[in-house]
């Protein structure tokens, strides 16, 4: 049975996935359309949302990747929190 916290974590994880996917698709478009200003605006706007989502996830559930580890913890959280394929990790 999924706990509330797990449900929240999955929702946050899904948000990161959708934003990350959008970023990659925009990146592919910009590779062939380097001068497209609309696409660039959309990319940077999405990047801002993505980084914000990563930071929020790291704050509540632990780091999504090594670059979002919150400093100041007693132990290195990246290796001490479950990886996605471990029990308690992933969605």
């Amino acid at each position, binding site marked *: 049975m999924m706990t509330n916290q797990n449900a929240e974590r999955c929702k946050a994880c899904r948000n990161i996935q*959708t*934003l990350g*996917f*959008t970023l990659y*698709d925009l990146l592919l*478009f910009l590779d062939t359309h380097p001068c497209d200003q609309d696409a660039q605006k959309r990319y940077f706007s*999405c990047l801002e949302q993505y980084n914000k989502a990563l930071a929020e996830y790291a704050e509540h559930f632990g780091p999504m990747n090594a670059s979002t580890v919150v400093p100041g913890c007693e132990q290195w959280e990246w290796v001490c929190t479950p990886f996605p394929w471990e029990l308690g990790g992933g969605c």
Partner: protein
Amino acid sequence: MSDCNQMNNTSCGCGSNGNGMRGVNAGRMTNNMGCGCGMDDNRRAGVMHHHTDCDCNAAMPCGAHNSFGRTAGRTDRGNMASNQNREAAPFARNREQRTFSAPCREHAHTHRHCCHLACPNTDDQASFSCYSVAMGYVPWQMFRNVFEPEKGFSRGTIFQDLDLPFLGNRGCI
């Protein structure tokens, strides 16, 4: 305003998409070869022109071309005045001087009814007469009709224009 507008032809697929590439890459394919569109005239850059000057019967487009990078059959490059006086146009040579790679050919379709599904109609050669044969062309994608992240993630693309149906059988639409 995009240069690749729908006049009587589709976009040539070159870099003339009105997104800042006009001056540098107008009329050029991404491999830096001419695409045969009106690249010297910014107003018409990106638009293929109707092929009329190849000594062929208009009802039977010849598919002839002088060379890739030049306008097939005729050229509408440069100013409008040259279009009105074809003999004065830069590439309007007489029959002996033209270097067509193939004579006018019969209008042949041997595979039109190859499948029971509705395959693309290739009978209308007039719209594609400026394109060299045996070459692949890809229409230029525009930044439009972008899905929201959740929708794009579930469809596999954020671009609605690329969200095409999967038929799973032979691919004829």
